[in-house]
């Protein structure tokens, strides 16, 4: 019946999946996913589901993927139907689709498609999108677990991906490395420094994996930093010296840390501040295993901080601290109070804290700790109280000064109402007394007195054992106890019975006069006990101690056998030898080797070759090296688009102007404003070490940056046409926001043209030089986004040397990372289809893009205009002439005329690209202003107007 109903339901799902309606299909898939989540079997729907794998609906598709991954293993033949869809999707222009296709393809675990997977992985590993490459790294592990025979090929892919400079890929590929070929340490050499440097920017999960891998790597490649410190080390020196001999060797040759070793320690340190507890733990274990001992203390605070985190985190961290605190008490001693137990802690947390407190105990702090322990003993959690008593016992044996105090305290606990507490106390006292029995006969007497009230078998057995062992110290009491026990023998627990037999035997040997009969009585009782252990023991003891004709040689030695001095038990931490496992690992937590655990090797005695980590740095070609060729090309370009050839020539001149920096450039431009003709030649500046070139009108840039020099400036020539297209495409709010600030500058910039009666060519409008060049530069690329590379741009408002229809732009690139950045260029894949030409690029054969950042230049409208001078009459005439006049009047409240005493301010300009006239007049009629803009370019007109409005409004007080 049930089965039938289930089938029916699936029938109806099948129908929904086969319908034409997307929404029905989606609904069906959602219900199927619900079934999978509950662990119900939905495998017979496979044929119906797999049909939808090529669906256009992305959510439906994703759910089908979920289903496929879950059931493909069971339905391999049908799963093959979907493969071609994925193969197609692998070529999709959308990186998310490429990546998810690879994810599913590699997850379906059908052995027959291994070759297809291999091919897809190889292809994806060279994909332009780092996200797809990351997916490829994940796919490596999946393929490896499906078919380990592919190992060799996969290692090749791993090798390739390890070279990847994207932070996105780093964590995943190291994970693949750890899974597939953790022993191939040679693959790491060349990437070691890169990984160290990338580490801070890798996502947190990748950090954990990389740090663990680098810990292993460092232990094989560097020599131990510990020997030297051991000199100053307060803790057991022996651990750090293998032999005296080594010490001598070491004294003659001081230890110098490998710079790469230092690099690792330095670059991981900031991660101690991570919010991710796994990262903090990973760095801590790295320091524990790799850092010189005196640098270890920096991890303490961070570990203690983790104790505020979730219960599970506390558990793992406390375990690691427990291991650490055995070897290095000093690390955690100042934070002792952080390990105080709260009544609300879970039991396993409490016992771990107790463990650590015990490890930290020394002569100086033992009294504080014991006082704290007193509170714990009273805890409602009895298991914890018992653990505390054990801890007191450990303190007592470790610190001889307090042994007596502890013993007395424990004896007091014997009168506690709680059985577990008493029992534990007895057991601990027994252990303590064993270390120094002679002085404590009164404690034994006291225990004998309490004996009647103690019911816990283990405690009773312990007391009996003590009596027997030290019966010579309590000659009067012991026989009496035995007498009492003889009465209750049959009602005792087995362990107690065994100890009664023991006690009887020992007393028989030492004090046979008083106890002979009692012993025989007990032995007789034991002989008929139900438990065969006790019967056996009784028989053995009888043969041993009671001399008769059959007894062999053994009975002669009975006394020596039974009364032999016994070694005192050692009370030590359960975490004593945990450090054989790498800290922070699962194996350490479990205290047994987990499968897949990779052991840390010991430090090599002699460091392996350091040079293996050297990466050849291609020396950058300097500007001066290629000057000739440069000039040739520039000459070529000059003929192409520009009318004023004189300006082109000035490029080569200006290249020698070494010291011209931004500031004196702008000042010079201001001084030159009157002589508008001559300045156009001088204006074009280039700063030292910059290169620029233009090959075709549509091509931009070039540039190349020697890494030694951090700051570089470049002049970029950008086709105005391009900027205009760009503006139209990206009229976003951000654009307007950026425009606003440059607006005030624009006002001033245009204002100077007003009323200047100068020569004025009627047809071709002659551009004049700007009065004011703003120093403000705009951010193109932030150094966070650019991984160290930052770029700023600034409009120089200089006529462009490469063409009249272009706008000059000054680009400042700076490198704030500590790595050399190479091969900086503007990508050819820019969305507006502009091409890039790079000069002196290093390693031109490398076509792989290592890091791509998409940036957009957002010029203020005003930057696209050139000021022109014209008379007032011409202005009015032109205003009338413009056939497509864009006119807009707006009333803006303002009560302060800007800069001018006249009521009407007029500004004239032309667009750089097309030379169309732009006329602006601002009429101030207190408190209102009327702005009139005349231009053919309506887009520019409207944007200008909007900015004027904002600027005027903002300038009001």
């Amino acid at each position, binding site marked *: 019946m049930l089965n039938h109903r289930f089938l029916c339901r699936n029938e109806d799902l099948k129908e929904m999946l086969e319908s034409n309606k997307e929404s029905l299909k989606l609904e069906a898939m959602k219900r199927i996913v619900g079934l999978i989540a509950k662990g119900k079997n939905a495998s017979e729907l496979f044929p119906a589901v797999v049909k939808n794998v090529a669906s256009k609906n992305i959510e439906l598709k994703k759910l089908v993927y979920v289903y496929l991954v879950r059931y493909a293993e069971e339905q391999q033949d049908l799963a093959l139907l979907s493969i071609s869809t994925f193969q197609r999707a692998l070529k999709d222009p959308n990186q998310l689709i490429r990546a998810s296709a690879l994810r599913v393809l590699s997850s379906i675990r059908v052995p027959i498609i291994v070759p297809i997977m291999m091919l897809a992985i190889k292809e994806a590993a060279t994909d332009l999108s780092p996200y797809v490459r990351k997916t490829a790294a994940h796919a490596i592990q999946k393929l490896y677990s499906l078919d380990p025979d592919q190992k060799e090929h996969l290692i090749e892919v791993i090798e390739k991906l390890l070279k990847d400079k994207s932070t996105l890929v780093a964590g995943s590929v190291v994970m693949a490395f750890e899974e597939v070929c953790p022993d191939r340490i040679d693959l790491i050499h060349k990437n070691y420094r890169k990984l160290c440097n990338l580490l801070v920017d890798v996502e947190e999960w990748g950090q954990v994996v990389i740090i663990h891998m680098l810990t292993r790597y460092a232990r094989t490649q560097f020599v131990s930093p510990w020997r030297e410190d051991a000199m100053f080390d307060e803790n057991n020196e022996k651990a750090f010296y293998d032999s005296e001999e080594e010490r001598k060797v070491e004294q003659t040759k001081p230890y110098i840390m490998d710079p790469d070793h230092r690099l690792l320690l330095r670059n991981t340190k900031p991660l101690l501040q991570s919010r991710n507890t796994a990262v903090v733990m990973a760095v801590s274990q790295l320091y524990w295993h790799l850092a010189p001992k005196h640098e270890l203390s920096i991890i303490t605070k961070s570990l203690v901080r983790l104790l505020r985190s979730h219960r599970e*985190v506390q558990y793992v961290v406390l375990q690691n601290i427990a291991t650490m605190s055995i070897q290095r008490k000093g690390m955690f001693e100042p934070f002792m*109070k952080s390990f105080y137990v709260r009544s609300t802690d879970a039991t396993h947390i409490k016992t771990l804290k107790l463990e650590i407190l015990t490890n930290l105990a020394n002569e100086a702090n033992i009294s504080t700790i014991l006082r704290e322990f007193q509170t714990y003993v009273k805890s409602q959690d009895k298991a914890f109280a018992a653990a505390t008593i054990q801890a007191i016992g450990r303190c007592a044996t470790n610190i001889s000064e307090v042994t007596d105090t502890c013993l007395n305290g424990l004896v007091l606990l014997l009168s506690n109402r709680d059985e577990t507490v008493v029992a534990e106390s007895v057991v601990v006292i027994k252990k303590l007394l064993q270390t120094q029995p002679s002085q404590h006969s009164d404690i034994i007497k006291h225990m004998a007195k309490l004996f009647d009230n103690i019911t816990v078998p283990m405690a009773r057995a312990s007391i009996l054992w003590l009596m027997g062992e030290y019966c010579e110290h309590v000659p009067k009491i012991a026989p009496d106890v035995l007498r009492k026990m003889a009465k209750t023998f049959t009602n005792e627990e087995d362990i107690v019975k065994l100890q009664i037999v023991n006690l009887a035997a020992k007393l028989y040997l030492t004090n046979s006069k008083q106890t002979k009969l009692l012993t025989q009585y007990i032995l007789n009782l034991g002989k008929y006990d139900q438990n065969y252990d006790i019967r056996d023991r009784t028989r053995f003891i009888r043969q041993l101690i009671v001399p008769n004709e059959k007894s062999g040689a053994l009975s002669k030695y009975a006394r020596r056998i039974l009364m032999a001095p016994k070694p005192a038990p050692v009370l030590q931490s359960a975490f004593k030898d945990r450090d054989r496992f790498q800290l922070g690992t699962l194996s350490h937590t479990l205290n047994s080797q987990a499968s897949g655990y990779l052991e840390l090797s010991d430090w090599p005695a002699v460091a392996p070759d350091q040079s293996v980590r050297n990466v050849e740095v291609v020396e950058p070609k300097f500007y001066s090296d290629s000057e000739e060729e440069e000039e040739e090309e520039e000459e070529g370009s000059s003929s192409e688009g520009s009318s004023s050839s004189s300006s082109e020539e000035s490029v080569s001149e200006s290249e020698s102007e070494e010291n011209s920096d931004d500031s004196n450039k702008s000042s010079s431009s201001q001084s030159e404003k009157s002589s508008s003709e001559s300045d156009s030649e001088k204006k074009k500046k280039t700063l030292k070490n910059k290169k620029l070139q233009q090959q075709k009108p549509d091509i931009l840039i070039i540039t190349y940056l020697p890494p030694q020099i951090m700051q570089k400036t470049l002049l970029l020539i950008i086709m105005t046409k391009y900027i205009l297209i760009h503006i139209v495409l990206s009229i976003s709010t951000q654009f307007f926001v950026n425009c606003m600030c440059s607006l005030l500058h624009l006002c001033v910039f245009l204002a100077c043209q007003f009323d200047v009666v100068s020569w004025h060519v009627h047809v071709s409008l002659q551009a004049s030089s700007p009065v004011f060049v703003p120093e403000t530069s705009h951010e193109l690329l932030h150094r966070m986004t650019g991984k160290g590379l930052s770029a700023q741009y600034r409009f120089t408002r200089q006529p462009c040397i490469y063409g009249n229809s272009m706008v000059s732009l000054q680009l400042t690139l700076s490198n704030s990372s500590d790595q050399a950045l190479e091969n900086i260029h503007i990508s050819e894949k820019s969305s507006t289809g502009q091409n890039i030409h790079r000069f002196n690029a290093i390693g031109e054969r490398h076509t792989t893009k290592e890091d791509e950042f998409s940036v957009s230049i957002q010029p203020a409208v005003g930057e696209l205009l050139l000021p022109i001078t014209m008379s007032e009459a011409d202005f009015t005439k032109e205003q009338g002439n413009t056939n497509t006049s864009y006119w807009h009047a707006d009333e803006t409240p303002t009560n302060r005329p800007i800069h001018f005493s006249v009521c009407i301010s007029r500004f004239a300009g032309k667009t750089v690209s097309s030379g169309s006239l732009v006329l602006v007049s601002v009429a101030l009629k207190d408190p209102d202003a009327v702005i009139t803009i005349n231009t053919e370019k309506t887009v520019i007109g409207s944007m200008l107007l909007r900015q004027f409005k904002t600027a005027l409004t903002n300038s009001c007080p």
Partner: protein
Amino acid sequence: MIHSLFLINNAGDLFLEKHWKSVISRSICDYFFEAREKAVEPDNVPPVIRSPHHYLINIYREKIFFVSVIQTEVPPLFVIEFLHRVAETFQDYFGECSETTIKDNVVIVYELLEEMLDNGFPLATESNILKELIRPPTILRSMVNTITGSSNVGETLPTGQLSSIPWRRAGVKYTNNEAYFDVVEEIDAILDKSGTTVFAEIQGVIDACVKLSGMPDLSLSFMNPRLLDDVSFHPCVRYKRWESERVISFIPPDGNFQLMSYHISAQNLVAIPIYVKQNISFFETGSSGRLDITVGPKQTMGKTVECLVVTVHMPKVVLSANLNATQGTYNYDPVTKILLWDIGKLNPQKLPNLKGSLSLQSGAPKPEESPSLNIDLKIQQLAISGLKVNRLDMYGEKYKPFKGVKYVTKAGKFQVRT
């Protein structure tokens, strides 16, 4: 790494399973159930459980066990941290992380789990990225979706995923640009019977709610950064700036996040805002006891103590309590043995007092242990450590944001021993 995940409720029902590699039978959870039974209290379940071929790493949160199955060596904290991140994501998406919400949104849960892990290795855990991939459910959207058939799933790769600031999505736009910071300090303290401080320290966090357009670059500075003993930051904070200038400089994630947490250790003197006078005693005979608790202000820096709650875990033999509170209400739960006294605002003129008798199980011996008191309190407009935000500056964007800083002091693990 992480092989499978099982969600198990407090009653021991397994209500969701998800596998990232081959399917592992749910019978593996028997090892967990065994440990669960042994532990009695859910809090006492060991976080790492071993079975012959697998390892079970679990967390307990919001009355749900998240049990993950591991096959090979992996740092346990890696898994634990991830599981907590999963729980936080659920909370972020559904408002709360409970069995009902997970069951109601099982499809979204599945889609999320699919995105968060690939082959057991975390893929996208930043909530900003996830929200672009899978939109959180709202009533309106789910209605629209059922009608139009449009989906909750994003079609393009979130921009944050590729940038080096994955925590922030591009193109954020707000009409009101605002940034709020809450400095929340918790006092962790243990006071002994006589009221002296055994141990006290301050744990602080700065929670931020930043709703700013574009790519703002913020920097936050303190009047007294030296106070901070140990800090941990959201990945967005530039650590080097902090090292050199003690300024927190960052490009914030969009929306709510925890900017930093800090620690002011016991070395500095910690002001304890209240004192507690208590006397809980049990009589040798008569199966009864007496309780008398008074709370008063100590170092409150002139502010009012609010939301004052005293919790007492009574010994098992206490059957009922007959008390009289001069302020607030009390409640004794005879099952959990928890006495809860909700005082509310602390009035320094008239100190709240709770007094009366306790009745014990007849015939039971007088309880040995004395119960400890847990205190909860809240002080508005005060950071008990004295930490003060000096200024907040914004670079990179042109608008003027609205900024606000709020201070709150709370009791963290505040315990009075008796």
